[in-house]
């Protein structure tokens, strides 16, 4: 049996292709587990996991918590809003204090890019990145890729468009790494102001024309406009954004082919995607959510296997 090449999940950038396949294979088994009448296995009953969320999250936090509980791990939750961080404690101190309570793994979401990486260097624990600022969101990319693989079987030669707020999106970067590793072609489509300057160096093509991009692609991942990260006006108005970069039923009909629609959630209905499209059969948004739990179970299981063996 293979093992992961890493002891932390900090980003897709640090993973090998074999790691991705191992995670997907394990996730398939866990997907079967979560569809049983009793959806729980005892593998991680001797492990404690801390979910540290320094930034708001609903889906990812619930998904991680559910994955941990379905593996029988003990879970403690922490959100920055009600914590000593507000009293001036540093990140390392906060985490070390939590680890002193004998925690084996840390799932962290943080507004600063590189936070997970920084922690992995300074604390003795297994770190899983659940999103660090505008940098990476590896579990999201893995579940997106897994959902597409489930649909198609193979991503080699497939064309995938990532549309929307690329500049502020950690989902975009992780997706680019994962999809390219699996042999897919990636095109980014966004207003000029929301495309990072040197993004082409990652080997992706770019476009400012949504209709053209949709004609080109086999699947489109519609990103949310991250208003909370926008300190400037990147586009004149939400209405204008949705007219140029929002996906609606008419646009889809014009394509005369069926493309797969993904969305990492939460959806701003009527902005990047209309309700008609989000609820259509082409959208695999809810599959993504279901697969999210299985993917996270696989990652936690495989990383837990690399933790020190408890009893000698």
């Amino acid at each position, binding site marked *: 049996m293979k*093992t992961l090449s890493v002891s932390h999940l900090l980003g897709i950038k640090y993973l090998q292709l074999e790691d991705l396949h191992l995670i997907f294979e*394990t996730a398939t088994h866990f997907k079967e*587990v979560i569809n*049983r009448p009793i959806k729980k*296995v005892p*593998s991680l009953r001797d492990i404690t996991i801390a979910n540290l969320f320094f930034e708001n999250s609903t889906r990812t936090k619930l998904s991680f918590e559910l994955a941990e509980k379905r593996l029988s791990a003990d879970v403690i939750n922490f959100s920055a809003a009600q914590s000593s961080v507000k009293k001036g404690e540093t990140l390392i101190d906060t985490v070390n204090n939590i680890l002193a309570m004998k925690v084996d793994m840390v799932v962290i979401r943080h507004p600063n890019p590189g936070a997970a990486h920084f922690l992995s260097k300074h604390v003795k624990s297994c770190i899983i990145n659940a999103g660090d600022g505008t940098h990476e969101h590896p579990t999201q990319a893995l579940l997106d890729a897994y959902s597409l693989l489930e649909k198609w079987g193979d991503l080699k030669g497939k064309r995938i468009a990532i549309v929307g707020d690329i500049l502020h999106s950690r989902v975009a970067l992780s997706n680019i790494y994962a999809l390219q590793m699996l042999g897919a072609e990636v095109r980014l489509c966004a207003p000029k102001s929301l495309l990072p300057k040197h993004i082409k160096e990652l080997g992706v093509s770019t476009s400012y024309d949504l209709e053209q991009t949709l004609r080109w692609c086999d699947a489109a991942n519609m990103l949310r406009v991250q208003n909370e990260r926008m300190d400037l006006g990147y586009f004149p108005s939400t209405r204008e954004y949705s007219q140029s970069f929002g996906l609606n039923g008419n646009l889809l009909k014009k394509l005369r082919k069926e493309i797969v629609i993904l969305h990492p959630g939460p959806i701003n209905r009527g902005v990047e995607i209309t309700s008609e499209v989000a609820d259509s059969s082409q959208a695999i948004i809810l599959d993504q959510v279901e697969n999210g739990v299985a993917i996270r179970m696989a990652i936690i299981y495989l990383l837990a*296997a690399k933790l020190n063996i408890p009893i000698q």
Partner: protein
Amino acid sequence: MSQKILLSEKKVSIILHRLSCQLIERHLDFTNTVMVGIQPRGIYLLERLVALLKEKKPSISLQTGKLDTTFFRDDFRRSEKPLAANSTEMHLSIEGKSVVLIDDVLFTGRSIRAALTAIDSYGRPKAIELLVLVDRRFSRHLPIQPDYLGAQIDALQGDRVKVVWSDKGKGDIVYLEEKETENEV
């Protein structure tokens, strides 16, 4: 590593016939019985038995499943490598049914313990029985014994009992691979 034949083709074939007769004796028409092969190697024995049962009683309809016990094992994180899972195919409920767990070799009993926990996820069975082809006696770590038994054998701790299932369904052989002792060249 030296290899010797424990059960020849003929013996395996006789044993399989006997086991299927014993199953019929106890389960009659199999309406309330679910036969579950334990992954990865119990499923071949399950396939053989299903074929024999259908041959002997063409009218019966058998309910079968394949169960993987990886996530229920007690040795996760006790070795360097994680335990690789196999697929589970249990598209049925075992609520109120008699379950026959099927595996090729019974050794320490730990896989069976894991299987007993894993099967719980699919309901509360009326009873669970265990059928094995080979019982490595005197090597149990847990108080687990088979209800249906092919053959009992004696083997040393480091030895390996290997069941080779042929593709065509005939010519199945059980080998004993003995660990060479230090005195041997």
